[in-house]
């Protein structure tokens, strides 16, 4: 008889996933045009070699400390917690990293790997621009050529980040195909890679894409969860009851969740972009309302029509506006180790204002989705509860969007 998901959960050794071909259960894998199979094998081999190489890890650790500013604080949001009147909420302050979000943890790791592999040109896709800025930043730091693909519509709504990338010396290429957003930027970056495989390293910004990306990006991002686990034990003397993170592709969520996967008492909550509400169909919540399929090199939950075409998504936050999600999240959903929920644009805006006004921290709109859910969860858990929210990025880039939503002219 097949094991129930509860049985599965207790016997799962999470460190064994993905398997050697990049599978998390039925998810993940490597679904790409043949031209990329050899470069992916080369990348996997290089990554597995450096993953445990003391010299590489020392270099990464040094830059994480001196360049990024790690470790980031685990900050007790006392006034906000009191105002809600529920659990004690801690914020993992990834907004304080250099470039203002968790994205730099991964961009730095991959760029250092690119350097070791002798690649002089890096390419990246970006939605909100945070991963693009992080990639452009490390490329400038390491003296590499950098090309960033960005949907033409996202270039419109995230213009400050476009300017930042250009200042850093990156070439920002507008993508006008398809829905002109993140998924199309990813398509275009893959086409660039297919064409320039010899000298180019593709820095994927999230835990999606073909193997080894979901594994590699997760590894570079787990520094957040490892720090948070140590910090909460120091500050509270016990593990939290729940972790909360927003999920677009899911890199900030996996980075926080992964070091806690074996701690069965810790609930994991991933928060997708509910847009105008799941019922409206205008959202970006494949785990809540999608079906498994194949996109961008991996099998995972997707937003698609009945014929298997990928459909347009909507979110107030460009960084969550993506029809797929990292395969490990799909697997964690199916085996019920993590729960996935959604928060609407309006709820996210409320979370944005609440934390801005009570804590003096302006969060990114992506992050605001996690904050809005944490507020609901804090009430459910009550005053004895402890929650850690990944404050994955700062909101400076979103000021124009917030002003537009509220009818304010800057």
């Amino acid at each position: 008889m097949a094991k129930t998901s509860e049985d599965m959960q207790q016997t799962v050794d999470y460190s064994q996933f993905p398997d050697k071909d990049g599978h998390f259960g039925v998810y993940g894998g490597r679904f790409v045009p043949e031209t990329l199979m050899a470069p992916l094998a080369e990348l996997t081999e290089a990554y597995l070699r450096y993953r445990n190489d003391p010299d590489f890890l020392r270099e990464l650790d040094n830059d994480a400390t001196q360049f990024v500013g790690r470790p980031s604080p685990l900050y007790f949001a006392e006034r906000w917690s009191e105002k809600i009147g529920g659990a004690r909420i801690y914020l993992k302050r990834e907004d304080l990293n250099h470039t203002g979000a968790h994205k730099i943890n991964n961009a730095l790791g991959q760029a250092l790997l690119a350097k070791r592999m002798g690649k002089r040109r890096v390419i990246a896709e970006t939605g909100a621009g945070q991963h693009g800025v992080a990639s452009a930043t490390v490329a400038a730091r390491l003296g590499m050529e950098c090309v960033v693909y960005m949907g033409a519509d996202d270039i419109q709504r995230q213009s400050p980040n476009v300017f930042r990338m250009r200042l850093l010396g990156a070439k920002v290429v507008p993508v006008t195909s398809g829905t002109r957003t993140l998924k199309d930027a990813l398509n275009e970056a893959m086409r660039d890679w297919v064409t320039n495989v010899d000298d180019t390293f593709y820095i994927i910004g999230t835990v999606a894409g073909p193997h080894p990306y979901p594994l590699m990006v997760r590894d570079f991002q787990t520094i957040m969860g490892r720090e948070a686990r140590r910090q909460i034990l120091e500050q509270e003397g016990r593990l939290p009851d729940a972790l909360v993170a927003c999920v677009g592709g899911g890199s900030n969520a996996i980075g926080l969740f992964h070091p806690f996967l074996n701690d069965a008492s810790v609930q994991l909550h991933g928060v997708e972009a509910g847009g105008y509400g799941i019922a409206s169909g205008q959202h970006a919540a494949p785990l809540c309302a999608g079906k498994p399929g194949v996109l961008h090199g991996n099998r995972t939950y997707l937003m698609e029509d009945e014929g298997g075409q990928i459909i347009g998504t909507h979110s107030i936050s460009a960084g969550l506006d993506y029809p797929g999600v990292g395969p490990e999240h799909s697997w964690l959903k199916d085996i019920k180790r993590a729960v996935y929920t959604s928060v609407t644009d309006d709820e996210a805006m409320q979370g944005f204002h609440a934390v801005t006004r009570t804590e003096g921290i302006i969060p990114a709109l992506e992050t605001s989705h996690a904050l809005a859910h944490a507020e609901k969860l804090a009430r459910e858990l009550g005053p004895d509860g402890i929650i850690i929210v990944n404050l994955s990025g700062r909101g400076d880039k979103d000021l124009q969007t917030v002003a537009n939503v509220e009818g304010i002219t800057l």
Partner: protein
Amino acid sequence: MSRIQARFDALKADGRRALIPYVTAGDPNPGLTVPLMHGLVEAGADIVEVGVPFSDPIGDGPVIQLACERALVHGTSLRDVLGMVREFRQKDSETPVVLMGYMNPVEVMGYVRFAQEAAEAGVDGVLTVDMPPEEMGELSERLAAAGLDPIFLVAPTTTEQRMQVICDHARGFIYYVSLKGVTGSDTLDVEAVAGRVDRLHHMTGLPVGVGFGISTPEKAAQMSQAADAVVVGSALVRQIQEHTDDDGLILEKVTGLLASMRSAMDADASATA
């Protein structure tokens, strides 16, 4: 014997190379696809490759991306494409038809149903660009059970070891990607291609076709010296793109270009014979 194998056997007996045109089903409108397929056969196609439109064609350049977008405006689905092949078969039971596309529409339809319905419609081979043999597992079995040939790409980056794996999984023919890049690129190195095709011939008895970047009759003729088949896609689709609102002109231009490729290939073949 599969229709694809029969066709290659017959060509070999004649000392000729196969010409394989590609068009995206539903581009620029669903009504034109079947007439185009027949027109291509009349103009000298030996096998017809029909693209299943997909919203995110990561292996394709701008020409075929736009073709997919035009087809999707009409909602052309995998199911519709199978209907077109069925209609094509009413008048042509000889010419092999290969579907080329991406995995997700097949995933959604389900492997069993897809294999059955494709075979019933008269499809002969299936090429899913983003499905390497390593992941093929169950789909491979389903295609085989339905008598469909799985066609695979081999790229300039493919290692010798993988070439062998692909040759072991493939049936019908091997599709050698003649350049590093997406469809419709324009940097062909004929000698390098010839060397790789030669390697493949040592590994498999299957015919080897070459595609990506073959845009003119001259290039088609050159490539046909090196391989058993020449695949032409973006060059034809570009003719559709330039005349999207005139079905008659599309038929004329697309079949005209293919016919000129056919004559260039055959002239070259008789010159060297």
